[in-house]
């Protein structure tokens, strides 16, 4: 499959809608093990992103991804702003000047994005963060089994965070009290992959 500028655009618009639709749920997940703002943070950031996309109309996948990353960084704040921002910025670097991405190209972009998140946040799988959803999803993308499978892996990764103790972010203060709650970042990451599969 080929991923056009239009496809990427739809992906981001879908993400904005999903984060708004799940705003209260993401806040509630974050209230349980963090500070209750993850949904508000992403809704604020992606609203800004969609405004910018409509105003700037980037001409290449790289420009689009960069614009998403820069806007998230400058409008989200919190932990998730720099992390998701870096995800898109690093993806943009790999996209180069291609006018559309193929399966391998998309996989490489998102892999670079994930690597950026991990470089910045130092989280490993199992730390109960967004990495737990992103990492298995990006892994299967490399195997070219399709976006729906990647989304499926992200959801599984999200669910796998429920029994975990957190080692990164605010939830790490809680020790055993974090057990039993899905990580908000892993939940938003799985929504992002849901949109990639059905933008």
């Amino acid at each position: 499959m080929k991923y056009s500028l239009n496809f990427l655009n739809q992906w981001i618009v879908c993400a904005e809608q999903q984060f708004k639709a799940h705003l209260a749920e993401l806040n509630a997940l974050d209230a349980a093990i963090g500070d209750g703002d993850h949904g508000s943070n992403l809704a604020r950031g992606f609203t800004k992103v969609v405004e910018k996309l409509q105003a700037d109309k980037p001409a290449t996948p790289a420009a689009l991804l960069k614009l998403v990353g820069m806007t998230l960084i400058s409008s989200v704040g919190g932990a998730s702003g720099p992390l998701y921002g870096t995800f898109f910025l690093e993806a943009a670097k790999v996209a180069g000047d291609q006018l559309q991405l193929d399966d391998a190209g998309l996989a490489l972009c998102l892999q670079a994005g994930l690597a950026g998140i991990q470089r910045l946040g130092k989280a490993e799988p199992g730390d109960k963060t967004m990495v737990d959803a992103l990492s298995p999803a990006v892994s299967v993308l490399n195997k070219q089994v399709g976006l729906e499978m990647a989304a499926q892996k992200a959801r599984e990764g999200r669910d796998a965070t429920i029994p975990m103790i957190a080692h990164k972010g605010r939830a790490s203060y809680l020790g055993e009290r974090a057990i039993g709650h899905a990580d908000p970042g892993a939940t938003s990451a799985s929504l992002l992959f849901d949109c990639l599969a059905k933008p």
Partner: protein
Amino acid sequence: MKQLVNAPGQVVTEALQGMALAYPDLIRVHDNPHYIVRADAPKNGKVALVSGGGSGHEPMHGGFVGLGMLDAACPGAVFTSPTPDQIQEASAAVHGGKGVLHIVKNYTGDVLNFQMAAELLQSDGVEVRAVIMDDDVAVKDSLYTAGRRGVGATVLAEKICGGAAEAGASLNEVAALCSSVNASARSMGLALGPCTNPETGQASFTLGENEIEFGIGIHGEPGRQRIPLQPADTLTEMLMLPILEDLPFKKRDEVLLFVNGLGATPLVEQYIVYRAAEMVATKHGLKVSRRLVGSYMTSLDMAGISITLLRLDETMRQYWDAPVRTPALRWGL
């Protein structure tokens, strides 16, 4: 939960406009991005001190902008760290040619955003140092956590480093002093009730009739454990002992004792806790020589208290006593 606001999305913007109106002689407020600078910024030839973090902790940090304390503060959305460009612009606006010190509370969001801002500033040729504050003994400091949170010691570090910067200390000296304040301070807090984020309208947690959160964070994050309410003296001792043991504070140490209300705690209760805390400190053989009591680092309308103990050396004491002229802390001027 009832609040005096107009629109949830306007809370921070309108509060900042109110601050600008209320303190025209002390501060200037910048909109889009939000930051607060001292009225006479930039001060050429002085190290610039910049801090920031989520809103909802007022007067921290904006109330500490002014002579002898911060040059700029960057308020994020409620409980959400500011963004890199906000921090970059604020830092650039107050840079006086001697470099910028970022005083950052240890939360993943704050650390990452300040780090990105520092990279942007450095690529513009501005010398930046960051000190990460992590004084909260409620959190285990281990490889398996994000590390201890920055809480009350931040207020003390901002005052003391502000004094040093005003006196002409270099960036390296101010940064070293800030690290030393952080290394010499320990804090812990408890909440009697939750806070309500005006941007979401949600209470941060629910407690039973008689339950308190012990080891609370300043963003309504759940604490170490839930325990039953007990007399103020008992609770104060329960906060003081882990603080004392952690550094550890030793007999004859000279200390600054800071009792901080978390927002909705009446001064009467703060004084009762202060009394108990100084009694514990004295019993422990410490010499309490400087004191601060009040709601300086809050969590919106949370009822509760935190205690910070700082081991003073002569430099710290001198810069603590130095004049300060900000909306929330003022003496000598």
